[in-house]
């Protein structure tokens, strides 16, 4: 059913693909809303997945802010066998914040089954952990694991034999850096290796519990307002297995320290360099424009990304990257707190971003939800991206009656229907049941061509959702592999454009992910049921500006390598 092709392209590219035609391709014109019947179907296969892991995030119910963020999840192919293994950082407790039950690594066995190989992997990781980033930091061709922790962050080096070694200190990442929440690896300085951005949250001492706050008659967990924020951190990969802290010299700290919760990295300014979008809690979001040479400036406010259309900062957590209006530029959706809406920022040709939340219908359905991980994903392969969001309140006391929002909340899956998104009716069990979800990744976990999901909640079992679309030839997956890279093998920062007929779709390989997680570093395209005479054409813009072009077959996963040093 699947065909993996590894093609290094050179001259063939120009024959297979016409740049000019793609450049002029009409943006995708979604069909009228009424024409779209929902075909998004998933099923919870956790029970037979081999993953029987209950996350730990302090006390249940939570009493302190440290307990409410939960841990992330990473997609990693640690054994380079072409499927997604799973890494869960996991938390701890206020009493023993550095010695929790430990992170977990699961090997993908195929067929939506995994096995716990934590013990044999050598990953004895028990610090209270939040986000995670995956990347080949040392350029040895293998995925390594960075974990954003409370206390000292950790870097786990993949030794290539199924084992990992803690290289935090030797890599220059040692020391207590407070509360780190999320991380993203990308080649910020264009030297081919993966640098590292880490978001941080608040100053917090578990031995000094923060007194509760009061909200609408309820005694609730306090923060982050009123607690000193921590500024984010930036590390340059020196190419010799070590990192240098560039936080103070890079300009990322020019904006006031904020409550950083998540980040994604991709070129949002069109200058070919990877920028950093940071989701901040209760403060304006950052767009750290990459000026080159590890220098950044925050232009979030100037371009309209820092606040919503009301000019108000939000409590941003999840970030989804997609192209909702088919103009080939990356748009951003952030998830936010309850009594607020998720926010969709659509990029413009002039560099500004428009708050298009209302226009695309993604606001009202999110108003009673507290949103976390979010991802654009074509779940039904109809050629446009749907929206997958996990939710759950931070206050155990939250109820509809008291706060318009319950503690446990269902998923919000929105199907692209014409020009807008519409909420998928909660008619299926996987959609109905409320949870205290935090993180999630969406990826083709069983290599059947459709997008499945892994969901991580607060003190609850990890859930695996299998997409039952199961159609053979209405999709294409593009993965990148630059074997000559010094570390950015999977092309973080690349832009992948697919053209079939008049349907043009664009995806990005981003650093960071939906929330405290590592987005799938491959591009999935739904193609619709109607095949065209000509096969889909793909154009890859690599992070260094090189271009690869080729045709791909429907129903296949294609690995594309860059052309030799063409630019």
């Amino acid at each position, binding site marked *: 059913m699947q065909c993996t092709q590894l093609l290094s392209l050179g001259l063939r590219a120009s024959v297979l693909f016409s740049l000019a035609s793609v450049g002029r391709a009409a943006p995708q014109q979604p069909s009228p809303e009424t024409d779209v019947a929902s075909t998004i179907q998933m099923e919870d296969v956790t029970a037979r997945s081999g993953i029987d892991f209950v996350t730990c995030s302090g006390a249940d119910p939570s009493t302190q802010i440290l307990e409410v963020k939960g841990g992330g999840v990473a997609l990693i192919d640690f054994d380079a066998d072409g499927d997604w293994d799973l890494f869960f950082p996991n938390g701890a407790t206020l009493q023993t914040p550095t010695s929790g039950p430990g992170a977990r690594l699961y090997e993908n066995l195929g067929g939506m089954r995994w096995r716990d190989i934590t013990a044999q992997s050598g990953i004895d990781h028990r610090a209270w952990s939040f986000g995670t980033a995956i990347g080949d930091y040392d350029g040895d061709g293998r995925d390594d694991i960075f974990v954003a922790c409370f206390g000292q962050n950790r870097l786990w080096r993949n030794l290539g034999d199924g084992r990992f070694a803690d290289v935090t200190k030797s890599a220059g990442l040692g020391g207590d850096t407070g509360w780190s929440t999320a991380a993203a690896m990308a080649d910020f300085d264009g030297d081919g290796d993966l640098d590292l951005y880490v978001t941080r949250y608040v100053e917090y001492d578990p031995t000094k519990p923060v007194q509760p706050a009061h909200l609408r008659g309820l005694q609730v967990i306090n923060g982050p307002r009123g607690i000193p924020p921590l500024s984010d951190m930036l590390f340059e990969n020196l190419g010799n297995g070590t990192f240098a802290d560039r936080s103070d010299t890079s300009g990322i700290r020019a904006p006031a320290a904020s409550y950083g919760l998540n980040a994604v990295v991709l070129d949002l300014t069109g200058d070919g360099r990877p920028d950093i979008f940071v989701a901040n809690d209760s403060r304006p979001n950052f767009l750290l424009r990459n000026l080159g040479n590890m220098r950044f400036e925050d232009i979030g*406010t100037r371009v309209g990304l820092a606040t919503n259309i*009301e000019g*108000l900062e939000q409590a941003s957590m999840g970030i989804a990257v997609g192209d909702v209006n088919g103009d080939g530029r990356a748009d951003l959706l952030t998830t936010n707190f309850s009594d607020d809406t998720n926010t969709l920022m659509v990029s413009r040709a002039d560099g500004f971003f428009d708050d298009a939340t209302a*226009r695309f219908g993604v606001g*009202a359905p999110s108003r*009673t939800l507290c949103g976390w991980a979010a991802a654009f994903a074509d779940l039904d392969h109809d050629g446009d991206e749907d929206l997958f969001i996990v939710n759950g309140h931070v206050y155990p006391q939250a109820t*509809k009656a008291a706060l*318009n929002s319950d503690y446990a909340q269902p998923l919000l899956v929105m199907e692209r229907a014409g020009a807008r998104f519409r909420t998928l009716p909660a008619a299926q069990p996987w959609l109905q049941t409320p949870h205290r979800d935090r993180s999630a990744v969406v990826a083709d976990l069983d290599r059947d061509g459709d997008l499945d999901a892994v969901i991580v909640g607060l003190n609850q079992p990890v859930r695996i959702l299998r997409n039952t679309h199961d159609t053979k030839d209405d999709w294409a997956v593009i993965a990148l592999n630059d074997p000559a890279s010094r570390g950015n093998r999977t092309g973080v920062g690349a832009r992948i454009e697919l053209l079939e007929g008049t349907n043009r779709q664009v995806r990005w390989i981003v650093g960071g992910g939906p929330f405290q997680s590592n987005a799938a570093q491959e591009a999935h395209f739904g193609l619709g049921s109607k095949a065209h005479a000509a096969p889909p054409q793909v154009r890859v813009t690599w992070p260094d500006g090189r271009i690869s072009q080729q045709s791909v077959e429907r129903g296949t996963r294609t690995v594309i390598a860059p052309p030799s040093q063409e630019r």
Partner: protein
Amino acid sequence: MLRTNIIKRMRPAHIFAARTKHGAAVVAVLFLWGCQTEGTQKTPKNGESQAASEPTEQVATPKPKSPVSANAEQPQEMTHPNLAVAAQLVASGSFLDAEIVLTAILRDQPSSAQAKFLLGVVFLKTQRAARALPLLQASLASGQAFSGRKHVEHFIGWANYQLGELDAAKRAFQSHVAEVPTADDSYYGLAVIALDEDRVADAQQALERALELVGSSPRRVRDRAKMLARLGDIEFRADRIEPAVDLFEQSLELYADHVEVWGKLARALDRLGRADAAEAARVKQAAAQARVDARGRGEAE
């Protein structure tokens, strides 16, 4: 200390009125409720900040003995001596106190539609729409005549809006303007929903109707300001940035504490390349926010 704050906010006349029928019992309720309440609840910053702005007449103090909107075919409203006090508290924005009094009234008279209506308004005004909605609906369903009955749909509209239920909100606002054709804020509500549903022409039409109805009365400048700002949103959405700036500035001339409009103005000025003016607008936005926060520290919004 909490008790003290509550009692301080209760003006003597209110306490006296609360005592008139149920005396110590009501005071005891006030006392106990005060123990559970920590001063002012800060409302979330990003809701529809004018969402629960009421039409000019609907929270008028009821006349306990002779309902103004009594209908011969409807059951007469149940009266309670403290309803007038409660209505005054609602009208003055003393929502926490009003909640206490109204809760007590409903304990005495569980079927009082007037009390349910007023308590529904209180919950709506304090960002508890899910709690407000069933009370508002029950007040209507009671069939009782009570002061403000004809405006209940307006509040049902905003409650549904806060809960993300746009269809229900739309139906309620439409019902309200059908019954009260001069209900400018329900036209405003319809406009906000139309914007959410990307029906820009409908939004424009509803806003123009709302502006026409609200007129130029000095008492309504805040409402006029918010409507002008929404018209500015429409211009901005259509990439007509200069007209949007004009409308935002007109709005702020009328009401300078509309925090969000400063933000909108700044965004529009950035779009025009007027970075310095945008920054100045953001400074004014922060100042407006500080003023609003200072006002909010005394009593729940």
